[in-house]
C-alpha cells in the first residue's frame, strides 16, 4: 500500500518536473526543475534497492553535471529570453507528432512483451563472495566488466581534455 502511494507520487513528481523542464521559459528555472527531477529519480533508485546508484545519481548528476550546466548558463548570461514557441520556421507540430510516434512504439513494445509471459532468463546464480549492494557492484565492475571500466575511465579523461581545450580562451 505504501509502496503504491510512493510510486504514484514519485511518478507524478518525476513526469511533472520533466514537463516543467521542457516548457519553462527561464533557463535557470529549467535547470532547477532538472535538479529536482534527478533527486526524485534517486528516490526511485532507493525504492528499487539500488542505494549506491541513488547516491551516485545525486553526487554525479545532480551535484556535478547540473552544476556545470548552471555555471555555463551564467557565463552565457541568459536571462529569460522571450522565446516565441510559435515560430513558423520551427515545425513543432511535426516534433510533437514524432514524439507521439515514439511513445506509441514504446507502448507497443510493452504490450507485446508483457503479453507473452516469457520465461525469466535464469540469471546465473553467481555466488558472490561479498554481500551488499556496493560490494556486489564493485565485485562485478572489477572482475567481469573490468575492460569497460577501464575504457570508461579513458573516455572521461578524453572528455576532460576535450572540454578544457574547447572552452579555453584563445590568447
Amino acid at each position: 500500500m505504501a509502496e503504491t502511494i510512493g510510486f504514484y507520487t514519485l511518478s507524478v513528481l518525476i513526469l511533472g518536473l520533466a514537463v516543467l523542464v521542457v516548457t519553462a521559459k527561464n533557463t535557470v528555472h529549467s535547470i532547477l526543475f532538472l535538479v529536482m527531477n534527478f533527486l526524485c529519480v534517486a528516490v526511485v533508485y532507493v525504492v528499487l534497492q539500488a542505494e549506491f546508484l541513488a547516491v551516485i545519481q545525486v553526487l554525479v548528476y545532480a551535484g556535478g553535471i547540473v552544476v556545470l550546466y548552471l555555471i555555463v548558463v551564467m557565463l552565457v548570461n541568459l536571462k529569460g529570453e522571450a522565446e516565441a514557441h510559435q515560430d513558423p520556421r520551427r515545425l513543432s507540430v511535426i516534433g510533437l507528432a514524432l514524439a507521439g510516434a515514439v511513445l506509441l512504439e514504446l507502448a507497443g513494445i510493452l504490450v507485446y512483451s508483457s503479453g507473452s509471459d516469457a520465461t525469466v532468463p535464469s540469471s546465473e546464480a553467481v555466488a558472490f563472495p561479498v554481500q551488499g549492494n556496493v560490494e556486489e557492484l564493485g565485485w562485478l565492475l572489477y572482475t567481469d566488466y573490468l575492460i569497460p571500466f577501464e575504457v570508461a575511465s579513458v573516455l572521461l579523461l578524453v572528455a576532460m581534455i576535450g572540454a578544457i581545450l574547447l572552452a579555453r580562451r584563445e590568447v
Partner: protein
Amino acid sequence: MIDTIVIPLLKIAVLVNGVLVAVTFTVLMERKVIAWAQSRLGPMRVGPYGILQAIVDPIKLILKEDITPAKADKWMFTLAPILSLVPALVVFAVVPFGGDELFYVTDINVGLLFIIAVTSIGVYGIILAGWASNSKYPLLASLRASAQLISYEIAVTMTLVSVILTAGTLSMIGIVEAQQEAGFWFFFVQPVAFVLVLIGGLAETNRAPFDMPEAEQELTGGFHTEYSGMRFSMFFLAEYANMLVISAVVVVLFWGGWLRPFPNVAALSFLDFIPSWVWFFGKMFGFLYLFIWIRATLPRYRYDQLMRLGWKVLIPIAIGNIVVTAVVKVLL
C-alpha cells in the same frame, strides 16, 4: 509503527533543534576565541561573560528588515538560503554521536557517500544566491565560490576513497567499528588523509584561510551581499552548520568517533565510565576550536593560489594516498 516512524521523528526534531542551538553558540565561541587570540575580551555585556549573546544575535537578525532587490528573481532569491541550510542539516541524519542506537537517526550502508552527495547539493545555494541577486559583485563572488567548492570536493572525495579502503565499509558506524576492531584510530594509519580532509573541509565550508568568496574586504560581502535579515542568517547558520558537519565527519573517520583512546587496551578501561557521547562531543569541540584557531591565525589565500592548491597539490597527493593505501592493504 512506533519504532519506524515516531522515534526517528523525535530524534530528528531533537537533532535539528540541537544543531541550530549549537550553531548559535558556535558563533559566540568564534567571537570569543578570536577575541582572546587578539588580546581582547569579545562580547561581555549581554549575560555573564557574554553568554546570552548567542540568543540575542539571532533575535536581532530575525527582527531586521527583509529586503528583496527590485529586479531579483523572487523565487530563487528565497530558495537559495534554503538550499544552503537544508543539506547541512540533512547530513546529521547519518552521523553517529555515540555507541548506542539512541545516538544516531539511521545507519545506511552508503553513509559516507551520502554525506559527500548531500554536501555537493549545498553548492546550489551559493550559485543561486549570486544569480538571483541580479547584481555584478554577488554573481562574480558566487561563481568563484562555486568553482572553489567543486574543486575541493574532488580532492576530499578522492581522499575519502583511501579512508574507505582502510575501513572496508561505507557505513559511518561500520567505520567506527573498524577502528574499534583494529584497536587504534585511523589517524595513526592515514595521517596524510587526515590533513587533506582537514584542508579540503576548510575550503568546502568557505572558512579562513579559504574564505575569499565572502570576505568583506574582497567583493563587498561576496554572494550574500544583497541578503539581509532572516535570509542572511540562514546563510550564516549554513556556514557554521557545515563547519559542525566537517568536524563530526573528521572525528568519525579519523579520531575514533565515540571510542576512547586505544579502545582495545584493557589497561585503560578505567576510562570507560565516561559515556561515549562525551568522547564524541569533546573531540568535535576540539576540532571546532582548531578551525577557529586557524581563522584567527592564517592570512587569506588569493583566488588563484587557492585553485592551484586544490588542483595541483591536493588532488595528486590524494591519488598518491589511494595508491599507497591500496598497495599496503594488498600486501598486509
